[in-house]
């Protein structure tokens, strides 16, 4: 079996898993099950990222998204003792159909653009951690990178200030 074919089979397997888990996530009443389905989607997407040659982002995806962010979600779900929604989703069948139709319209619009997009294949493609870090810490993105660390600090302080029990004096 050629490597090309093996990559294609893996790609479609990961893509099918991602879409199936996303559908489960949206159709599920219980948010805890939704969270686990989202983890499956994120891990499948990490596989797709790896197949597209972005191994560094694939590892970040698993560590930061499936690891840190989803654990935070599950932690909050367990903390608040969330039960399944006891009402039908949306305002009944009509609203559900309208929502799906709006999603289909959006998919059609963006899809018509994406199908027309040129997708060449750059042959020498080096997205190793070294190459990405080289670009990230160049002068162009260095200050943006520093700004994200301030963003993280601000969100840390903001999260503690918002979630603490006593609103203060």
């Amino acid at each position, binding site marked *: 079996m050629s490597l090309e074919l093996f990559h294609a089979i893996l790609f479609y397997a990961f893509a099918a898993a991602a879409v199936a888990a996303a559908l489960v996530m949206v159709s599920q009443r219980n948010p805890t099950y939704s969270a686990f389905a989202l983890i499956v989607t994120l891990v499948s997407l990490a596989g797709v990222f790896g197949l*597209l040659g972005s191994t560094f982002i694939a590892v970040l995806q698993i560590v930061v998204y499936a690891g840190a962010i989803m654990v935070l979600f599950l932690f909050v779900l367990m903390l608040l003792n969330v039960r399944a929604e006891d009402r039908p989703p949306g305002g009944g069948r009509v609203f559900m159909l309208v929502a799906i139709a709006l999603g289909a319209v959006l998919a059609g619009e963006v899809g018509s653009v994406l199908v027309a997009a040129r997708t060449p294949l750059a042959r020498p493609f080096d997205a190793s951690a070294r190459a990405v870090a080289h670009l990230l810490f160049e002068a162009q993105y260095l200050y943006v990178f520093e700004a994200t660390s301030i963003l993280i600090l601000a969100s840390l302080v903001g999260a503690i200030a918002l979630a603490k029990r006593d609103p203060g004096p």
Partner: protein
Amino acid sequence: MSPTLIQHALLLSLVLFAIGVVGVFLRRNVITVFMCVELMLNAVNLAFIAFSRAWGNLEGQVLVFFVLTVAAAEAAVGLAIIISIHRHKDTLDVDAFNIMKW
């Protein structure tokens, strides 16, 4: 990897984004709505990665890195807001969260 596969990666990102949008419309639980937003962010990341691979341009990877950071900050602050509102309203239904309404 062939150009067709990259085209299909873009279509996958489109499908995931649309599923996320429908989820934001349909779901009542605010945490599920929040997770649908995360799904949409991930779909956009996939489009960045696919275009980065297509054009051999690493700036797409750097943008994904920043999207990841912003998503982490957003999750932390958003969940803190949800905890704080849940303390007052004792529900997670989005329809109950109308305290910002004028």
